């Protein structure tokens, strides 16, 4: 049984529909103490990082404890950002902090008409390494590396997913797929039993459903 954490940040209807269509069993725990009973956790969410303030305290402690005991955790959009140490969008609110790094605002590029928020379908690519460590030469051909990561099983580089966000995590050692929109950011992260996606798999058609299916597979293996 998967715990779908509802902390009031956005509507969970779509996530519920996607999980139901894949035959997953899930419930929304009413209190933090129930988290320990579940075999996996999903933290969804859209909107301002400040909304994750509702998780500060008992929820953050309970989810943190579950993750440390090996329970798989899947963060979606705002839920992925929350896995990091914090966000410039609401600096006073701490993230879960299971992944090192800080979420920053995307810059966009007016000349190239790359607007913020980043709304629409964009491609997943294999990460070139942490941001700043190996800058890509201008005009060089896209790299050919495949996508690795349990959460990306069955997907090829260039697979498109649906984004809608203004903030994103940098490409860190935990990044398994990056996306470019003026800046290059972490689209998918994975670190042992912790997984996160910046986009909305529940809105990304077959590619998105495959990613949720992959998480369900991870959950079964635990």
């Amino acid at each position, binding site marked *: 049984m998967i715990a779908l954490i509802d902390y009031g940040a*956005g*509507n969970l*209807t*779509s996530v519920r*529909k*996607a999980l139901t*269509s894949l035959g997953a069993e899930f419930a929304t725990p009413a209190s933090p103490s129930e988290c320990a009973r579940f075999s996996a956790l999903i933290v969804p969410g*859209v*909107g*301002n990082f400040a909304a994750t303030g509702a998780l500060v305290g008992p929820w953050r402690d309970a989810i943190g404890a579950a993750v440390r005991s090996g329970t798989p955790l899947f963060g979606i959009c705002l839920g992925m950002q929350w896995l990091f140490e914090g966000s410039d969008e609401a600096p006073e609110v701490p993230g879960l902090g299971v992944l090192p790094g800080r979420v920053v605002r995307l810059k*966009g590029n007016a000349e190239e*008409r*790359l*607007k*913020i*928020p*980043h*709304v*629409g*379908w*964009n*491609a997943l690519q294999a990460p070139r390494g942490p941001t700043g460590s190996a800058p890509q030469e201008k005009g060089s051909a896209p790299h050919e590396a495949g996508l690795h990561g349990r959460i990306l099983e069955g997907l090829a580089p260039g697979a*498109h997913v*649906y984004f*809608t*966000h203004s903030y994103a995590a940098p490409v860190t050692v935990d990044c398994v797929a990056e996306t*470019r*929109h003026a800046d290059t950011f972490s689209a998918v992260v994975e670190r042992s039993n912790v997984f996160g996606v910046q986009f*909305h798999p*529940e*809105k*990304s*058609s077959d590619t*998105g*459903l495959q990613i949720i299916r992959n998480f369900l597979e991870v959950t079964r293996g635990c």
Partner: protein
Amino acid sequence: MLTKRIIACMDVRDGQVVKGVQFQQLRHAGDPGELAERYNVEGIDEVVVLDITATIESRQALARTINAVARKIFLPLTVGGGIRSEEDAAAAVDAGADKVSLNTAALRNPDLITTLARRYGSQAVIVAIDAKRRGDGFAVYVRSGTSDAARDAVEWARAAESRGAGEILLTSMDRDGTRSGFDCEMTAAVANAVNIPVIASGGAGGLDHFADVFTRGHADAALAASIFHYADTSVTELKRYLRERNIPVRL
């Protein structure tokens, strides 16, 4: 690279798609769920359900329609038509809509944009603008295009953005239903004035019209209804055409 979005619009009345459907291609004529499923297979990027009756009775039918569509496809789903209050928006979202599209109500009560943006996030709030050319400008009309709002489309789009709108759905009333192409000048005027995505609508007739509105019109997305029902203009074919012209699309 962020792709240009192709959006299919379904005009719905009492649970049935009523405009531009080539009925014989569907097992059940005009069923929104079936049509949405077909669009999903063809590679549509988003779906808009527009309630064209928007009466009290139709609201319940609309909730059932949204639910039926949202169960079948896992794509961004926008609902518009007659959303006048926070309660109307909440009913659409609860039924499975990811975004709501406001038109007349947003002009009459711009605070509604802000209220919904705070509750659901700006990404969930589209402001729809129906406009036609007048002199050097673009006059906004409301009440399904019957009433002059005495506003200019560019100015209203900017105001809507500052109120919290996440996207602008811009329909050319001059081109709507004519199949003579999108109004690229009007689309560019609005797209250049705001920092949020602009969806062009009205006038789609051929594949080249989409290429035009993505290049000359600077549109982030293009919406059409009836064109996608014709066998000679599938979403897949349109996207292949655009890719050949170096316009980024999801294929």
